[in-house]
Every structure is written in structure tokens, then in C-alpha cells.
């Protein structure tokens, strides 16, 4: 078993998928000889050849549309979009075609494609490279939206995404690409695409996050532990379909909840979680559910990006308010 970074885990899962299923084909810009701007596909072109790893002309709409057509013919395209800010031109194909082809043909055609795209800020990247728009994707019926927060979950969730018979957007937290290492067993085992992961059990407060924000969230849980407060930490992992059951069950025990996300606050996915919780667990709530989120601002350039990303300080302040409430 090897200690892998998240990007290596992605690479390993891609290799495994290419190996296992001849219908899996990678699409993207600079993913071939170059190995991808983050090296997610490093060595794959060399190993599987140019008919499995396809360098594309520079056109994101095209990548989305090609993937739809290939998937309808029974292939399993896995497309890389270099940065989330470049996913917007793909939304038309995601919302109008990929997510509905099965439904609009009443099951005759389907769209088993995967779109891999980086997610989030904190790596000093240029404009449009640090976005977080998972809630827009979560609003598209027929889609699945997934975001791992560790190398092993990246491996298992990506395999699941590629094998899934329906379209999946797989968000990769750029900030975690090389930040942490974990033992990853390349056993071809997929993780479920409809389940949250409880990363830490606790009884006083539930902290809910996903992607790169798990880092700060776990840090805060540790800080709270030092103060004798037991925080349960949940990694949502699959944004759509959202496993409310796990979160509701937790909050029914803790009575308090803080949701953390990098995306802008308004209509972010935290709103959906808070809405579900008050619908299903209002009697258990000992305080309002707080959301610690990116502000409702345009994703800033590097000099200010950390000023909108939830910091441990902000998360802790919210926990304090929630714990002190009432």
C-alpha cells in the first residue's frame, strides 16, 4: 500500500479505470504527453496511448458536447476541465443534455460521463482559477456532484463516478492536491455516491463541510476538543444526491450545527443543508444552524483570497456562538 497525495490518488484511479474498462476514455486539454496542468494524467498517455487519452482543442463547450455524444454511444468519457472557472461553458451541456438524455429518451440513451474539475482557492492562482460553484451543479436534476477530501476518498469516489451509469461532476480540491498523504490501496474498490462520511464522532456539536474546508473544520474540532467540547465532523462528499439522513441523525444527537463552505454564502449548498435540518430536526435544535462561508464576493485574486475563505477563527467564532446560544 502506497502513501499517495490526492493528485496521485486521482492518477491511480484513472489508470485503474482505463485498465479495467476499454470504454473509458480521457478527454481534456494538455492531458496527454504533458500529463495535465496538475499532472493528474501523468504517464497515462504513455501507458494507454492516444486513443485512450485524448488531448483536445481548446474549447470547453466542445469537451462537454463530445462527452455527451461519446457517452450516448456507450463509452465512458472522463473529461478534465482545467479550472472551475472554465466549467461555465460546459453547464449548457450538463444541464440541457448530459443530465437529461436518459430522461428525455425515457431510458433509451444514457450519459455515463464524468467531468473532473478543480475546486476552490488557496493556491495563489490567477483569476477564474479558484471558484466554488457546487451548489449550481447540485441544482441540476439528473446529475451527481462529488467532492473528496482525502486521497483515499478521492480514489474510491472517482472510481465510483467513472463507473456510475449517469453523469457525475467530480470536483477536486486544488488546495489538497499535494497537501496531505494517505495510504491508498489500489484495489479497485469504489465508495458509495450517495453517502456522507463521519470523519470524527462527537456529541456536542456537528460540523459539516466538504472538500478542502475539511482541513480547517477538523482543525477546529481539535481545538474544541482541547476545550472539552466534542464535535462530530461530517464530510458531505457527495453533494448531490445529498445524504441528509446522516447529518440529521447527527444533529438530532448534538442539537447544534455549523456548516462550512468556501463558496459564496447566498444560495450556497450550506443553505440546502440548513433548510433540510430545520425541516427534519427542528425539535432537536438547541440553537440556529450557522453557516460559515465564503462571502458574497467575486473570488478574489491571491492577495485577498484568504480573506473570504472560512478561516479557523471564523469557524470557531461560529461554534462559540452556537454553543453559547439560548
Amino acid at each position, binding site marked *: 500500500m502506497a502513501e499517495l497525495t490526492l493528485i496521485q490518488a486521482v492518477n491511480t484511479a484513472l489508470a485503474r479505470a482505463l485498465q479495467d474498462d476499454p470504454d473509458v476514455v480521457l478527454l481534456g486539454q494538455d492531458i496527454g504527453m504533458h500529463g495535465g496542468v496538475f499532472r493528474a494524467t501523468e504517464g497515462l498517455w504513455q501507458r494507454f496511448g492516444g486513443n485512450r487519452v485524448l488531448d483536445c482543442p481548446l474549447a470547453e463547450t466542445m469537451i462537454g*458536447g463530445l462527452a455527451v455524444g*461519446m457517452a450516448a454511444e456507450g463509452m465512458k468519457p472522463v473529461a478534465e476541465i482545467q479550472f472551475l472557472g472554465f466549467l461555465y461553458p460546459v453547464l449548457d451541456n450538463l444541464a440541457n443534455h448530459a443530465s437529461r438524455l436518459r430522461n428525455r429518451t425515457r*431510458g433509451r440513451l444514457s450519459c455515463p460521463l464524468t467531468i473532473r474539475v478543480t475546486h476552490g482557492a488557496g493556491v495563489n492562482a490567477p483569476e477564474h482559477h479558484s471558484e466554488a460553484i457546487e451548489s449550481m451543479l447540485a441544482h441540476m436534476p439528473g446529475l451527481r456532484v462529488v467532492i473528496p477530501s482525502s486521497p483515499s476518498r478521492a480514489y474510491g469516489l472517482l472510481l465510483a463516478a467513472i463507473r456510475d451509469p*449517469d453523469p457525475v461532476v467530480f470536483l477536486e480540491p486544488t488546495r489538497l492536491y499535494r497537501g496531505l498523504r494517505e495510504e491508498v490501496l489500489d484495489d479497485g474498490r469504489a465508495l458509495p455516491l450517495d453517502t456522507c462520511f463521519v470523519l470524527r464522532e462527537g456529541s456536542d456539536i456537528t460540523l459539516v463541510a466538504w472538500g478542502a474546508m475539511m482541513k480547517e473544520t477538523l482543525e477546529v474540532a481539535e481545538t474544541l476538543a482541547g476545550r472539552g467540547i466534542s464535535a462530530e465532523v461530517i464530510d458531505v462528499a457527495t453533494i448531490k444526491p445529498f*445524504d441528509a439522513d446522516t447529518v440529521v441523525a447527527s444533529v438530532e444527537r448534538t442539537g447544534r450545527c455549523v456548516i462550512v463552505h468556501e463558496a459564496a454564502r447566498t444560495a450556497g449548498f450550506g443553505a440546502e443543508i440548513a433548510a433540510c435540518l430545520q425541516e427534519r430536526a427542528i425539535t432537536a435544535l438547541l440553537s440556529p444552524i450557522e453557516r460559515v462561508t465564503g462571502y458574497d464576493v467575486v473570488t478574489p485574486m491571491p492577495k485577498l483570497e484568504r480573506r473570504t475563505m472560512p478561516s479557523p477563527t471564523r469557524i470557531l467564532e461560529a461554534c462559540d456562538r452556537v454553543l453559547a446560544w439560548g
Partner: protein
Amino acid sequence: MAQTADSPDTIVATFEIRRRRFLDENGVAIAELPAFGADRDLMRRIYRGMSFVRLYDQKRVSLQRTGRMGTSATALGQEAIPIGVASAMREEDVLVPAYREDGAQIWRGVRPEEMLIYWGGDERGQHPADPRVAHDFPVAITVGSQALHAAGVANAMRLRRQQRVAVTMLGDGATSKGDVYEAINVAGAWKLPLVFVISNNGFAISTPIERQTAAETLAQKGLAGGIAVLQADGNDVFAVRHAMLEALDRARTGGGATLIECLTYRLNDHNTADDSTRYRDPEEVKRRWAYCPMKRLGTWMRAAGHWSDADEEAMKAEIAAELETAVERYLAHPAPEATDMFDHLYASLPRQYASQRAEAERLDHG
């Protein structure tokens, strides 16, 4: 800036656009006809196919006028294109249509009642029973989106080294969409087995082609992607079919993609919700009837001894009966269940949406 004698410029590339035509508007051959013109049975099927489109369109519109059909578009005056295209394709090829090619879809195996079910507002019409069209794409409502899907289909064929071709059909308006250009470009870059058929009927709803683009031809849109291009007289089924056979052959033998611009004219309103007198001169439409593809082929068929008045009468009765049956089946089609909305959303519905489905079911039957 005056050009000097020792010019700084050299010509590095030249291009020409050719236009293909076999029959003039009076149905008289102006060039040696392709061999298939001698295939009496085939030519009769083609003529019948075009006639079917016209009568089917009439039927669909009359259903709409009597409140039993949603909005849809006819192919009036353009019948040679869907039939010229579909008749040239093989079963294993894939058709990726727009929304004005019911004729091509039906030729390939979709039943007329299935098209009516779709235009009547029900997704089930896009799941035709005939296995021959199992790979064909459904109607594309978002203009131009089908071009990239067809490129994806063609790319799957290429990667699998199949001898199949994807054929996508587009309007003149669609050529303004970036999607279509991106499809043309990748078709060239990857030598995709793909044919773009553009039905240039002069209008995108109210927008005449002159205001859609300054390009002298739509064929030259293909030059931007380095693919083969050709114009065809879209009201001459010989030209359309001949151009298609050439393009399909090129694609099947590894020669890559072709863009065929078929010149035609939309004799009808844009669709059943449109009133074209708001934006075009009815006199012009009248004048354009002289170029009707049905009349042109009919004249030639009779002159060639392929067709008679008796044939015409028999065919019309036959088609009318067929359409009667189709309409009956359409009208008798049971209403969909509310749960249909959920049952093809995912391969299997995530448990998260089960309660929504249950509510829809309860209220549907309540």
C-alpha cells in the same frame, strides 16, 4: 495603403466552394445523373418518402390547429433534404437531427405516431420501438447543440475503428452558434467520420440569412475547420443524395468530415406558433413555390417512366391510411404517469428522491 510592385504578400492557400445540382427547377437533368437514378425502386421509395413528409406535416399541423398537438415545425419545401440524407445512410450510421427532420427520422425507423407523441408533449415519443434507430439521437431543441453530440458519436466510432458515420442536421441559423463551429473544428482536427448537413432555408425564425452572417456561403464555415465542404441544391434530391453518398464514403474510408450546405427555402411559417407575414413578403413565398422539390422530382419521375398518375393516387391513399392509423394510435396513447418523471432520471433513483416520487404518485392518483 498602396501596394508596391514588389509585393510583400504571397498567396499561401486558396479555396473554392462548389455547388452541386442535377435537376433544374423544371425537373430536367442538367448534368449526367448519378447511377442511382436508374434504380426505379429506389427512386419510387424516395419520391414516396418525400410525399410522406408533406402529408405527415399537413396532418400534424391540422392536429395542432384543432388543439390536439403542441408546437412543431414542418419541412414544407425542404422535403428533399431529410429524404436525400436518410436514404443515403446505412442502418448502423447514427442520425443526430434538429427538429425539422421528422422525415429522416421516420425513414430510418421511427414510427409516425412516435413523432406525434413527442410533439404532443410527451418524452415517450423519443423512445421509438424500432431497434434500427436505437442509437439515433432524439430531436434537438436547443439550436446547434446536436453538432457536438454528433462529433462525440463520431469520435466513439473512430476510437472503436467502426465503419460507421454520424450525420447531423442543422439549420442556417445554427451555423452562428459556437457549438457548431467547435464541432467543425474538432471534426477536422480528429478526422471524424461525420457529415454536417446544413439546411439553409433562408431564415432562422424571422432572421434572413443575410443578417445571420456575412459569409457568402455557409459551406465556407467548414473551411475554418479544414474539412471538406460542398453546396448542394437542397431542392434537388439527386444533388442532396449524391453529395451525401460522397461524404459518407469519405467518412467511412477514413477521409474525415464533410459539411454540405443544402440550399432550400422555408415555404411555411417557422412553426405552428409563428406568423411569417409579420416579417416576410408573401409574394416572395409564392415565387419560391416554383422551386418546390416535390414538383421537380415528380416531373422527372414521370418523364423517366418511374411514376404515373395512378401511382400518385395509390400512394396518396396509402399514405393517408397510414397517417390515419398513426393519428389513431397517437390519440389513443395512454397518458403518462407522474412517476415517469422520476423513473428515467437516473439508472436507479437515489433513495433521496423517493419521497418526492411518492408524493407525485399519491397526487396523480388522488
